């Protein structure tokens, strides 16, 4: 899915002039607002057009120029707001900020776009305003923007779940060299409370549950080095601890990771 503002020219040929949507993938039109101008970046507002808000993106199509249109996915909209302050902008409008690919770079190129330049690099545009001719529609538009933005959360990739680094105790903070200037979280060290302490196994940073198994395999001292086919190794001497003194036991336990 493309990041940032794009040109959009795909209109239905049936005379309605409506944008062609990705209906195969469930995109639906949610709201249509005619008589809306658009101001891209710092440029002057462009001649009235129609705003189409879908479940995936915001599309503006020019009324006068059938080849002109802009679109941006909700995934790229960092924020949107109702702007009524004339000092901020002369006309009441929906102000939106667009997350661009080069967002880390302080890019001032949008200011250098002059009126005469028709070739506009949309991918660098950071702000866009939608100016309805009827200012009373602003709150409705804002609401629709909110509802559709909520339909577009960040897609969760499988790999991200493993990237969680939950800090359970101050021990982990000390072991991570140069760990974080963000020291907002201070956990008091409570040696009597072993819950949440990872006992030095920092690779097990994801949520784990320690399971104490009163298993017959642990009972008999003679039964050593058995059941190695399961992949767990356990020594029968370390048996029957029920939650205390866990720091002595570095092996012989079952880890269940979630």
């Amino acid at each position, binding site marked *: 899915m493309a990041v940032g503002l794009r040109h959009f020219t795909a209109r239905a040929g049936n005379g309605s002039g409506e944008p062609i949507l990705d209906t195969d993938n469930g995109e639906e039109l949610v709201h249509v607002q005619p008589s809306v101008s658009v101001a891209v970046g710092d440029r002057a507002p462009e001649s009235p057009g129609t705003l189409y808000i879908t479940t995936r993106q915001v599309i503006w199509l020019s009324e006068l120029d059938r080849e002109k249109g802009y679109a941006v996915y909700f995934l790229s909209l*960092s924020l*949107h*707001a*109702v*702007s009524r302050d004339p000092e901020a902008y002369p006309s009441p409008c929906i102000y939106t900020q667009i997350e661009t690919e080069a967002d880390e770079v302080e890019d001032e190129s949008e200011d250098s776009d002059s009126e005469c330049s028709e070739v506009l690099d949309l991918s660098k545009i950071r702000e866009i305003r939608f100016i309805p001719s009827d200012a009373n529609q602003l709150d409705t538009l804002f609401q629709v923007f909110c509802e559709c*933005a*909520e339909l577009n959360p960040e897609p969760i990739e499988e790999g991200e779940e493993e990237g969680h680094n939950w800090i359970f105790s101050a021990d982990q903070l000390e072991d991570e060299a140069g760990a974080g200037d963000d020291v907002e979280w201070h956990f008091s060290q409570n040696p009597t409370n072993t*819950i*949440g302490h990872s006992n030095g196994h920092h690779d097990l940073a994801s949520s784990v549950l320690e399971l104490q198994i009163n298993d017959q395999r642990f009972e008999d001292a003679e039964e050593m080095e058995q059941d190695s086919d399961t992949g767990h190794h356990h020594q029968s001497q370390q048996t029957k601890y029920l939650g205390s003194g866990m720091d002595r036991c570095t092996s012989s336990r079952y880890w269940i990771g979630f």
Partner: protein
Amino acid sequence: MLFFSYFKDLVGREVTVELKNDLAIRGTLHSVDQYLNIKLENTRVVDQDKYPHMLSVRNCFIRGSVVRYVQLPPEEVDIELLHDATRREAR
């Protein structure tokens, strides 16, 4: 869902949301959702010289994924409560 619940309790308080693009916006927390999308009211930009275009917008919807920090008033933060809640969440 811990921070969703936590922010729900902060609705009505003044917060400052700092975005990943360095913009900092102060306002009254109107609502928050499960993705930590944030709606602010009576917003004003903290560093007005840097972002003049956003002067006093009335309502603002901020996408959760672009938030870097949410700065809270210290008197509103119960460290012990958060401590216990995060411990419970981690189990």
